[in-house]
């Protein structure tokens, strides 16, 4: 066997600098949250501060409504994730496997909505929410995102790729259509579900534009909306913004790490199948 010139894969030479590049903004954000505004605004910028301050964290945590923003964001994101997993799986499976009149037209219409920008539908959506008396409630944030065309598309593509014979075997083994979905298709769809969950969580958690329109009162704010209150027209409390950002980013990182394990599992298991 030939002796390797390097004790690690040559890919690492490329990947390690890239990883540092991507991690840098996060590191800077964490560091900045422990600086005073004077240190942050200093020019040229200091990357490694000479002293640590908790003034930013103090501002954020002192704000009475901050915990409720976190809870609000959590409620909206969790409900959206769960409902997307349920509804997108059901719809995706139906489009992949059931043949009903107009199914391809309906699917094409759903896909077509992907090209309509949200800016075009936000005012009609607002009017609908107003008529439903839901403006300034969390329901206004949750209902428009209960099921997304992207999720339906993602799940449908995955279900189409599942071997039909496995599902037929389950039908012969005594499963109904729903049984096949629950006992065979969904367990096999874990990688797709993990992707959908991570994606939905990220979109919902980071959304700012729709909450700005649909939410007015301080206590109904979500985190991104709340963070904007640290940026006034004339003053910028950067230390508070950065501390708030750190708190906001943590659940996203956790969600990604949780989903990542499933991604890797699915990649390695399919590699063994051969």
């Amino acid at each position, binding site marked *: 066997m030939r002796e390797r010139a390097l004790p690690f894969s040559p890919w690492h030479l490329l990947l390690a600098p890239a990883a540092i590049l991507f991690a840098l903004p996060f590191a800077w954000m964490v560091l900045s949250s422990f600086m005073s505004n004077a240190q942050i605004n200093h020019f040229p910028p200091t990357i490694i501060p000479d002293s640590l301050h908790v003034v930013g964290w103090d501002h954020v945590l002192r704000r009475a409504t901050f915990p409720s923003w976190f809870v609000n964001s959590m409620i909206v994101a969790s409900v959206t994730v769960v409902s997307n997993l349920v509804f997108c799986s059901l719809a995706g499976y139906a489009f992949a496997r059931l043949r009903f009149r107009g199914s391809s037209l309906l699917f094409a219409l759903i896909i077509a909505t992907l090209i309509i920008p949200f800016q075009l539908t936000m005012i009609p959506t607002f009017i609908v929410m107003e008529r439903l008396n839901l403006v300034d409630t969390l329901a206004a944030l949750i209902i428009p995102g209960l099921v997304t065309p992207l999720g339906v598309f993602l799940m449908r593509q995955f279900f189409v790729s599942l071997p039909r*014979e*496995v599902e037929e075997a389950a*039908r012969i083994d005594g499963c109904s259509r729903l049984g096949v979905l629950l*006992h*065979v298709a969904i367990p096999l769809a874990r990688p797709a579900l993990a992707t959908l969950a991570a994606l939905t969580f990220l979109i919902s958690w980071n959304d700012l534009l729709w909450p700005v329109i649909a939410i007015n009162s301080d206590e109904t704010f979500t985190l991104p909306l709340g963070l904007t209150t640290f940026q006034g027209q004339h003053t910028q409390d950067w230390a508070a913004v950065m501390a708030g950002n750190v708190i906001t980013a943590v659940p996203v990182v956790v969600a990604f790490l949780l989903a990542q394990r499933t991604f890797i599992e699915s990649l390695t*298991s399919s590699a063994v199948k051969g």
Partner: protein
Amino acid sequence: MAAIRIERVTKVFDNKVTAVDDVSLEVGDGEFMVLVGPSGCGKSTLLRVIAGLEQVTRGRVLIGDDDVTGLDPADRDVAMVFQSYALYPHKTVRENLAFGLRRRRVASDEIRRRVDAMADMLGLGVLLDRKPAALSGGQRQRVAMGRALVREPRTFLMDEPLSNLDAKLRTSMRGELARLHELLPTTTVYVTHDQIEAMTLGQRVAVLKDGRIQQCDAPQRLFDEPANLFVGAFIGSPAMNLVEATVAGGLVRFGQQEIQLEGVAPGLEGDVVLGIRPTSLSLPEPHVNAAWPRMSARIDIVEALGAERNVLFTVDAPPVTTEDVRAATGDAGGSDEGRLLADDRRARFTARIHGQHPIVAGDTIELAIDPSQLHLFERGSGAALAWRRSAGLERRERV
């Protein structure tokens, strides 16, 4: 256990393709029925119709005394083994075996007992906690069989279950399957395109083409008395030698060759297709009847198979290239594919002789033809001609 009755079943797909065309078939209680035919002949569709995975366009399917035509696969009490095995990749072997029982709400003690017994029988004991991805092809195949057997269904349906295995494993699994059916004589419908599997496993074999059953008979009868040109050309390996010939005055002629037909029915005259099995051609050795007609052959190719040899030679007469023959030989290396030169419009024959004879390509040899083993088919329709006055009787005397 239960008999299967298929009554005038037609299956037309959405794209207007008729996969199964007015098929009626009865599979006896405990019988091993093989459906065989070239790809696209409708054999798998017919199996899926029995399973309930396809709905019939017309006709009825009965299992036992129950009309199951409109029933879901789950309610038919059938078990199926798929070509790809179709194991549940996310479940262990034990869970794969138990899944069908669990869905049918069998008590968990009973499930454990039956799964363990099945694992013992098929030698899966050490594999019970593995997932299908960690099994070899042969092991997956056994799990797929076990999953079907453990349910103790009324009928087994098998869709080319051995075709993903390598040749050696396939041969041994074939034997195992035959033994298994002796052990558990459950009504079985088995689909294959491999005629050796069909002939060795089936108590009866139904030969299909274009969605219709051409002949359904015991394997030996299919070989001895093919109902038409397609069955004649499809069954038997190497394939039956076919040549355009004419019958006149009790003689059948092709090229320069003339063969006296023994006991030919009066009035049989005109153009026919003559079929001679490679095994009906033999070297004129002492035990061969001296009265048998001879033909001389210049050997093109010798295929030494060890115990036997196939010698290939050309006959100075036009080959038979009707649609029937092309369909029958299409996936087994047809007469056209075996031809090197496209403009060679002569029929190619194969004779099977024993392996010791020192023959090389280029030799000219004399072959004796067993006149009782000749097959005559109508030129147009391809239907077998009952040319003997007492068809079939002579043949059995010789066997």
